[in-house]
């Protein structure tokens, strides 16, 4: 592997825009990461309050909690793990894994019904 090493300390007088261009990176990546982080934190606050807000609603509470968890997980996978912008090979691996999980879930459910 081409392991080009750079000095541990950058020289003064950097050109952030130029660096961003050289790195092929959109300049707003940091803002995006921070925004996602804020959304995740707020979603966690809401999630913790849901059992109090939807107390006694049974399935509705369960569905709301699951949807919130899935949305949070999706944000991390799509944006922090860059699945949205990266090769579809990786997305294929994720889809295959989730398909296998769903397959075993169905088997488990059918097994429970058969008992």
């Amino acid at each position, binding site marked *: *592997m*081409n*392991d*080009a*090493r*750079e*000095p*541990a*300390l*950058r020289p003064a007088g*950097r050109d*952030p825009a130029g*660096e*961003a261009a*050289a*790195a*092929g*990176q959109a300049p707003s*990546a*940091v803002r995006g*990461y*921070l925004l*996602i*982080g804020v959304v*995740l*934190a707020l979603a*966690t*606050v809401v*999630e*913790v309050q*849901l*059992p109090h807000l939807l107390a006694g609603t049974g399935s509705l*509470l*369960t569905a709301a*909690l*699951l949807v*919130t*968890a*899935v949305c*949070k*997980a999706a944000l*991390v*996978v799509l944006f*922090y*793990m860059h699945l949205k912008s990266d*090769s579809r*090979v*990786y997305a294929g*691996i*994720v889809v*295959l*894994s*989730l398909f*296998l*999980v769903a397959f*075993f*879930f169905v088997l*488990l459910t059918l097994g*429970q019904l058969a*008992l």
Partner: protein
Amino acid sequence: MTHVTATAGAAINPHSTGVPSRKLAVWLFLGSEVLFFSALMLTTMALRLTSQSWPAHEQVQRVLNIPLTALNTFLLIVSSVTVALALDAVQRGRQRRLIVFLLATLALGTTFLGIQAYEYHLLWGHGLTPTAVPQAEMAGADPLFASTFYAMTGFHGLHVLGGLLVLLLVIGRALGGAYGRGSHEGVELFGLYWHFVDVVWIVLFTLAYLI
């Protein structure tokens, strides 16, 4: 051996998939981890649905410290942010920021484990052990609740610990100047694993503590 660098930080070896081999390997590993944690969670669900004496939600709320665990969830989310910012920093050639954000991730991850260890200490003292439930709050409840709780959260904790050990290696290499604008695959691959650990906890927190 020569390599063709198609994207910053990741050398692509000539092979059929067209993606960096190490990154592909990490994603395949994460795929297997999805199956591993799903097995734990689905087993817990199955046991819960078939049990005649699974503790009620109110009983669980009295035993588990939801606010403390919510704080822990927040810490892990913030650590995902710092890992993402670390990768952004190295992609821009900002070494100091890379090291700062990696150290922040280490601190947050260590705090997460510390809080989890403290939680285990409290729960154990309360009577919730891997084979028993506290009789005061969960009299007659299925002890499998405790077993599955410790199995899920314990395995996740071990994954966090493993991640922190790898992070120490990454920090060591970063301090040695191993990563730069054109060579930061190690940071990216660690980031993938750490974000996955966060994703697992997001789901686990909901299933084990809130539902």
